[in-house]
Every structure is written in C-alpha cells, then in structure tokens.
C-alpha cells in the first residue's frame, strides 16, 4: 500500500505527529489524575467541577426488584465509619419490608476540607483557622484568650483536667469565653464545590462548670444552629448539620459563643470537620410471586 512517494511520506509524518500529540495529551491527563491531595487546591477544584461525582466513590444508584420475599437487605458500600439511612438506621446494612426508595449517606472523610480541624497538625497546632480571640500560650486567665493545648488545667488552675476529643491525649482549642458578643472563636475559609452537600461537625466541652458556653455555628453568615454546653466539665458534645453549597465555591465557617458572661463561660473545641456527603439511592420493589399454577386437561 505504501510506496515511498513524497505524498505518502507526508501522510506518515502526519500520523507520527498525531501520535506524539495524543501521547502527550494522555500523559498529561495521567499526571493530572495522579494529583491527589486531601485539601482542595485550586487545580483540583477545577478538575472536580468537570466531574463533580469524583468526590463520591460510592457505587452507582441501584434499582432492585425482589420476588416473593417479605423483606430485602440493602447494604451500603463498605469502608465508611458511619452510615445514615433514610430510615434513620445507622448500620451498614438495613432490612426493608416495603417497596420504595431508600438511600444512605456517608461522609467522605477522604475529602475533609478543614485544615487542622483536630488541632493535631504536627507542624503547628494553630495552623489553618483564624480566631478573633487572643492567642495566649502562657495562661488563659483573661477573658477572650485561647490556646491549643492538651489539658485545660495546664493554663488555668480552675479549668478541668481532661483529655481532648480526638484521642483523649491530643490537642484541643481551650477558650476563656469573651464578654464581647459575636466574636469569632474559630473561623476557617474553605473552598467548596458548588451543588454539593457537606456535613459540618464539631465537638465542644465545658472546661469550667459555671455559666457554660453556648456555641453557635454559621457558614457564609447563615446560622446553622447552636449547642448549649453542659455544666459538667469534660463532657464532649457534638453538633452536626448538613449544608448545601448551592452556587457557593467558598464556605466561611465560623463558631461564636453566644454567652458573654465573664464569670465562667469557658470551653474547649475539637475535631471540627467539614466534608462532602455522598448519597446512594436504592429503588426497591418487593414483588409478590404468582400463585402456584394448576394444570388441567384442555
């Protein structure tokens, strides 16, 4: 087919050039996909915009039909620390007894977006967040001071001796509540994907029994809710809520203390988390079997 006339040689050159071009396209793509980072860099965010599904590694939604059974078992993808089913169940598998649509949600902690949310950052325990409080690594006797430490009592003799929430022996943010209202105790600006649901979770505990803190949470100025801490010290209380990004690409998360009582009002924060929620839906149909047939002579 190929005789070596110049025209065909040109064709071959074109083919070679196209191949080289294709190779570079392919290799750059590979390099791009290999770029894995826990935090969303701007590049990753752009990539994720093209394929927003990438942040959820759940198997595809399923339509399941069953014959002649009164119940069916739905099993969520393995590998997640907790599950939340539309039925309220929190187990990996659920048994359903009627046809319908069911779903479970998991938080994809591989895409945790809070930097140093557990205050365990080895390079700098104060990394990632900002605070309108006054950082004081010596003591916490003044209202409006905070420190990231392992034991509240180590910077205030009246504060409880207690472990953090992460491991019981790690770091937490310990705060002497301010008498000024609406001051950010903790804030972090986080790049988010639009049209994605995130779960916000934080743990708080009183470190002094008098006038416990009352923590309120907001994203981009919208209140998410609040928790009234217990007067019992060292009791870690959780606040969890979901937030849908809509068109937002940034989530400015802030935690304020609604209690401005200078007497007491001292607390600790730990394990601030903000990660995408992934959902898988099962459409289940429980069909009855037809009755046992009877053969008759025709």
């Amino acid at each position: 087919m190929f005789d070596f006339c110049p025209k065909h040689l040109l064709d071959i050159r074109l083919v070679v050039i196209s191949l080289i071009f294709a190779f570079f396209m392919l290799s750059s793509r590979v390099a791009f996909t290999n770029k894995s980072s826990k935090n969303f860099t701007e590049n990753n965010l752009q990539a994720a915009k093209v394929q927003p599904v990438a942040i959820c590694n759940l198997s595809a939604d399923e339509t399941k039909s069953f014959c002649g059974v009164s119940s069916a078992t739905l099993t969520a993808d393995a590998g997640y620390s907790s599950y939340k089913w539309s039925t309220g169940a929190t187990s990996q598998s659920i048994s359903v007894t009627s046809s319908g649509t069911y779903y479970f949600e998991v938080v994809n902690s591989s895409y945790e977006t809070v930097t140093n949310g557990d205050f365990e950052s080895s390079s700098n325990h104060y990394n990632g967040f900002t605070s309108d409080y006054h950082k004081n690594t010596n003591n916490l006797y003044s209202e409006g001071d905070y420190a990231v430490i392992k034991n509240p009592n180590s910077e205030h003799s009246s504060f409880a001796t207690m472990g953090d929430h992460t491991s019981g022996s790690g770091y937490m943010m310990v705060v002497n509540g301010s008498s000024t209202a609406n001051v950010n105790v903790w804030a972090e600006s986080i790049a988010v994907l639009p049209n994605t649901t995130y779960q916000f979770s934080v743990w708080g505990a009183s470190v002094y029994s008098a006038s416990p803190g009352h923590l309120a949470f907001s994203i981009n100025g919208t209140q998410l809710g609040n928790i009234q801490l217990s007067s019992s010290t060292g009791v870690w209380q959780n606040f969890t809520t979901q937030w849908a990004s809509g068109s937002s690409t940034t989530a400015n998360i802030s935690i304020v203390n609604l209690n401005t009582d200078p007497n007491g009002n001292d607390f600790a924060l730990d394990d601030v988390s903000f990660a995408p929620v992934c959902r898988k839906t099962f459409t289940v149909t429980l069909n009855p079997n037809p009755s046992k047939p009877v053969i008759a002579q025709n």
Partner: protein
Amino acid sequence: MNTKFTFLKAGLTFIFAIVALIASAQSFSGPSDATTAPPSTASSVSEVLCAGSTISLKTPSTTGYTYQWYKKNTGGTYVMVQSGSSNTYTETASGDGYYTYELVQINGTNCSSVVSDPFNVYVLPTLSASITATKSAICETDATSPVLTATPTASNSKTSSYTYTYQWTKDGAIIPGATTNTYTVTDRTPNTTTAYGVTIQFSLNNSCSASSSTNITINPIPTKPTIVVGP
C-alpha cells in the same frame, strides 16, 4: 477491519441465537416413563388417553403472564418444552406410558411461581381384539353350542396388566347382558350365517377399544327320512 469484525460478530450472534433457541425449549416425543406398570385405576393418574391421542393441557390464563411447560424425561428430569405467553400445551402421544408435566407461571414483574403439581397422563397401548370359536358351523339340533372367546392383545406386551370390558354383538346389534369375554351361541335358526362381534374396551378408558367379528353358520338338518316299500 471493521467489516471483518461485523461479519465475525454477525456469525457469532447467529450461532448464539441458534444455541439459545435449542437450549430454551427442547421438545421431545414419547412417554416420560414407559416401564412402570399401568395405573390400577383411572383416578390414580390425572388423565388416561388412547394410543396416539393428542395430549392437550391448559391452565387459567392471566394477562401479562408467561408460562413455562416442563415435561419429565426418561431420566426423571423435567425439561422445559414450551415457554411463552400460551396457557395451553399440546403434544401428540407417541407410544404408551406415563407422560408427566409441570408448569411454572411468571408474572409481569418477572417473578416465578412455585412449580405446579405434576400432571400425569397415562397413554394406553394400541389394542387389538380376536375371537376364537369352538365351532364355526353347527347343525340346528346340535346339543353343543359354539362358544366364542374374545381375546384382547395390547401392543406393549403388558396385555395381562390391564382389565377389559366386553360387549358382544349379533349382526351389529348389542346383545344385552353379553359382557364377558365368552359368548355361547344359542341361536339355532337354520340356514343362517350370523356375524358375532365383540368390542373390547380398556377399563381405564372405555373409549379406547378394538373390535373383531366371526361368522357362525347354522345348518339345517335333513328332513326325517321315510322308509317305503321298494319299487
């Protein structure tokens, strides 16, 4: 290259289609079981049919259902012989013995029923009848009457395993009460040749029958001679 693959693909598709067709419903003729002794009564099977009859089965029809008809093979395995929307199944009996069927129905959501109870058809062998007569001709005054004996023969060498009913006829008319395997000719009307017939029926299904007939001739006796004085 594409053309080549298209041909290959078409060829493979064709082969798979054939295989699928063969695998989907294999009909086979003949009984599921030709060796077991005949049923003692008709009620011990679902149906008793004559040799060569059409086996015709049905189940109530439901819209949207498909029906899988199974037939037991001689190895005892149920083989699907028909699958589709038809709620009836027919097969021409070929050979005597038990023909056993089962049915599964599948609804519109692709759910299957349990298997039906087996439907057991017993197909009788071909029957033939013969008559043996002690005499085929007698004289009108003979003291000994001809005795006719009817003998059934089943085509499957199990003749003695069946029971039969008999009905004798005389020139085609039923002889009332003549319902055993023998008939004694009592008629002495001279100068007659009469056809005596018998119809033998299987007790299992009396519509499965065979007939035979034989002629009996009654000869007149010559007139009583008279002795007169010679010429």
